[in-house]
């Protein structure tokens, strides 16, 4: 009996103090993904990486906006979004107290404006993303002229790029030159 009481005192209390005291967390615990909309360029890398499609984006062409959303009710806390994010806009936090009474409270959204194409003036990509890509392609360009050209290319929509790709060789006169060389 005395031995048992001694053993109880020796081993101490195993039960954690939570919820009366904060729970000590591991450094690499994968908790709630915390999105910083100011840092996000809405590049959709996370929406593609997300295995359960908890992260998604919808585009409203009429309003020229794109809405990014995360559903914590569907998230499996795998951290793939954090891995692929080029601007560290989404990081897994230590937060685990996510229980809610209403389903809607589990959904976070961020609305981004769309940029208009330089050539045809239709909205085609998120303005922040276009600005970021312009910075990146200009930073890796060898000459200032090349940088400027790349900036303009980044601000052109894919349809216009394709159209230009068709028109430009026509302007170069490839067919005429071939004729000349043949002669």
């Amino acid at each position, binding site marked *: 009996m005395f031995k048992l009481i001694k053993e109880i005192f020796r081993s101490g209390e*195993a*039960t*954690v103090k*939570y*919820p009366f005291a904060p*729970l000590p967390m591991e450094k690499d615990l994968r908790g709630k993904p915390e999105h910083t*909309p*100011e*840092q*996000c*360029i809405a590049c959709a890398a996370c929406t593609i990486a997300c*295995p*359960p*499609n908890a992260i998604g984006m919808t585009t409203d062409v009429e309003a020229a906006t794109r809405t990014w959303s995360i*559903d*914590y*009710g*569907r*998230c*499996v*806390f*795998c*951290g793939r979004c*954090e*891995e692929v994010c080029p*601007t*560290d*806009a989404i990081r897994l936090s230590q*937060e*685990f*107290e*996510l*229980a*809610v*009474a209403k*389903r*809607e*409270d*589990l*959904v*976070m*959204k*961020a*609305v*981004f*404006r769309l940029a208009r194409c330089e050539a045809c003036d239709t909205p085609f990509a998120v*303005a*922040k993303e276009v*600005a*970021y890509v312009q*910075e*990146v392609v200009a*930073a*890796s360009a060898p000459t200032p002229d090349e940088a400027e050209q790349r900036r303009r290319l980044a601000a052109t929509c894919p349809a216009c790029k394709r159209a230009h790709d068709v028109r430009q060789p026509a302007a170069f006169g490839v067919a005429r030159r071939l004729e000349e060389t043949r002669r």
Partner: protein
Amino acid sequence: MSSLPTVDQFTPASGIGRIDTPADIARMKASLLKDIQRSAYVYRVDCGGCNGCEIEIFAAITPLFDAERFGIKVVASPRHADILLFTGAVTRSMRMPALRAYEAAPDPKIVVSYGACGCSGGIFHDLYCVWGGTDKIVPVDVYIPGCPPSPAATIYGFAVALGLLGQKLTAKTHVEGENERVAIAHPTVPYNLRVLVEREARRMAGYRQGGDLAEVFLAAMEAPDGRPFADRLAGLLRSTPDPRTREIFEALGGVITAAVGRLAR
């Protein structure tokens, strides 16, 4: 065959076994939460889960987390239950058993949707045989997300269900502000060089840790104190106790030296 009840008769909307209007149920639920003078009995309904959630529920009632100190007790029959804990994504074949468990529990009952699958179908949300969430078949009072929710998250969820703690999460919508722009990280490091460094770090340490290590490395190399690169690298290596991290930093230094060498040629 015609004497068997149809599927519709089993759904809560048509109300087999239902004795009260929704208003009555809400009132009874409130009084249950206020006047409960005994343990809250929990019955666990598995409607097609992977058992991860069950393991965490049982971890929550072990001595380490000990949900029973709050009077939360897991029982073996829905007829004893105050709280029904639905786990799993509600598969086609587990839908009827789940509804039967719901109907077998006496009113007022609190329904808790447990885990990512219970909340919305989780990673199985678009399978052909999956209903996708407990709230598709029964009214849910509390959602506990997580895949699976940790024992601590489980205890927190029960506390929310019993009205002991308030919920922390609320729906938020951020609208992009004027002139909101994202700057390139480490603008003083040439972009292509940064890509090489990050790629090497991720190759050696994995995607996430590699990214973090590259961040530490670039921040140290970028510090505006005018020392030569070799000195800074030596300083960084001296201040890194972990030999594995040191090896990665050495390799990243090698990447930069090689890139500078290529440029000089």
